[in-house]
């Protein structure tokens, strides 16, 4: 378990993929021997929240959903939004570049490259749509629900929440991980032997990493965000009666 008095550098040594999680808190490299406590204090990041996110990311078995639900909504949403930006601006473009290279260079039969490109583009579109839906509707809705819950509702907010609910979100919340899973298997099992296996290793490494990241992300949405907002929705309904 990572604690606040750990040095940030030791955290990275535990698992280097945490660097991208740090990025979501706007923590960049070059922090010397500072501890987590020092850096969080400097950057005005809540230490407890930071540690819960980091520890959940490190250990799949550790997911204190009740504690996570007690944190302010906008911290959770900020973290989720930053993660979206990471997918949109970093992960997917990088993967796309490699896929295009693979499609044009790895397979003798042109149709194989075309299939790969097409399948990836479908995945990309689906993911981007999913992210846009959350950034443009779900997150603003949740923020407004919190405002109403705290008796700080504005007219704008009341408009935002009309006709939407967590129940709607849950029914729309499709399985974006399935296509990613399929993409991996198609590359590993069903496309023919590539002429440049290194590209395949690279892409698979990226895909596995992305999959894990998205799984963690979805877990926070499903087990923390939704229940938290649902609880507020319930209270609001009670007050209205």
């Amino acid at each position, binding site marked *: 378990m990572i604690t606040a008095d750990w040095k940030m550098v030791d955290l990275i040594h535990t698992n280097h993929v945490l660097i991208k999680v740090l990025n979501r808190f706007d923590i960049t490299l070059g922090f010397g021997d500072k501890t987590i406590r020092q850096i969080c204090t400097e950057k005005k990041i809540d230490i407890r929240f930071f540690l819960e996110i980091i520890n959940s990311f490190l250990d799949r078995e550790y997911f204190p959903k009740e504690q996570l639900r007690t944190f302010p909504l906008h911290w959770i949403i900020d973290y989720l939004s930053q993660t979206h930006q990471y997918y949109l601006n970093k992960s997917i473009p990088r993967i796309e570049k490699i896929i295009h290279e693979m499609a044009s260079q790895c397979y003798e039969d042109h149709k194989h490259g075309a*299939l790969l490109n097409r*399948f990836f583009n479908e995945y990309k579109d689906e993911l981007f749509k999913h992210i846009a839906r959350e950034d443009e509707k779900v997150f603003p809705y949740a923020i407004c629900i919190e405002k109403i819950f705290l008796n700080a509702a504005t007219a704008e907010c009341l408009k935002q929440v009309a006709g939407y609910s967590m129940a709607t979100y849950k029914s729309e919340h499709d399985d974006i991980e399935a296509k990613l899973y399929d993409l991996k298997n198609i590359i590993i099992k*069903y496309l023919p032997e590539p002429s440049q296996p290194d590209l395949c290793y690279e892409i698979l490494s990226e895909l596995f990493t992305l999959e894990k990241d998205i799984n963690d992300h979805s877990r926070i949405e499903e087990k923390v965000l939704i229940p938290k907002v649902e609880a507020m929705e319930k209270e609001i309904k009670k007050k209205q009666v």
Partner: protein
Amino acid sequence: MTGERALIISRSYLLRSGLKPIVEETGQNVEVLHSDDEHIPENIQPDFIFLDPVTISFQRIEKGWKNIPNKNRPKIIIVYFTLPRRYTNYPYLLDLSQPKSHVQQKLRELLNASEVISDDNELNAPLSNREINILRLVSLGNTNKEIAEKLFISIHTVITHRRNITRKLGIKTVSGLTVYAILNNIISPEDLQQFNALSE
């Protein structure tokens, strides 16, 4: 064992976390869940249970399957460092104090020599003709209802076949299945174009 579900039940975090990856490594396509209490939700339906008798009551778990015929019951495997006397003659045991290679070998035996599931060999087989037909119709965009009507079978049967196809191939989505179908010449890109043209 392919396409199976295993459940590890123990109050020990260390035991659950340690056993899970090894079982996943050893069993192909085994979905490994874990729990820290004796209550097993209805929808879980494990094929295997790894039970820690020190922290969990064997009797209480076994009672859950009292009314189910033997062949549909999960195989309960007792995991231990020191075997409690009463289980000396129990047939499914996993000694956790052994080195990794021994544990894996034992796991392979326990998971493979199963009287529980007889159609696991099916999951290693290539797609049957029926499954190929269904795959073709799925890739062409037919709904379960349409497939059922075209093949004169029930929707339930279609769903079962689709589930088996997914388990055999490791592909979940319709577009993934379409790619597989094209790669294996089950449909041609022209078939797909025709379908797309029709639906516009």
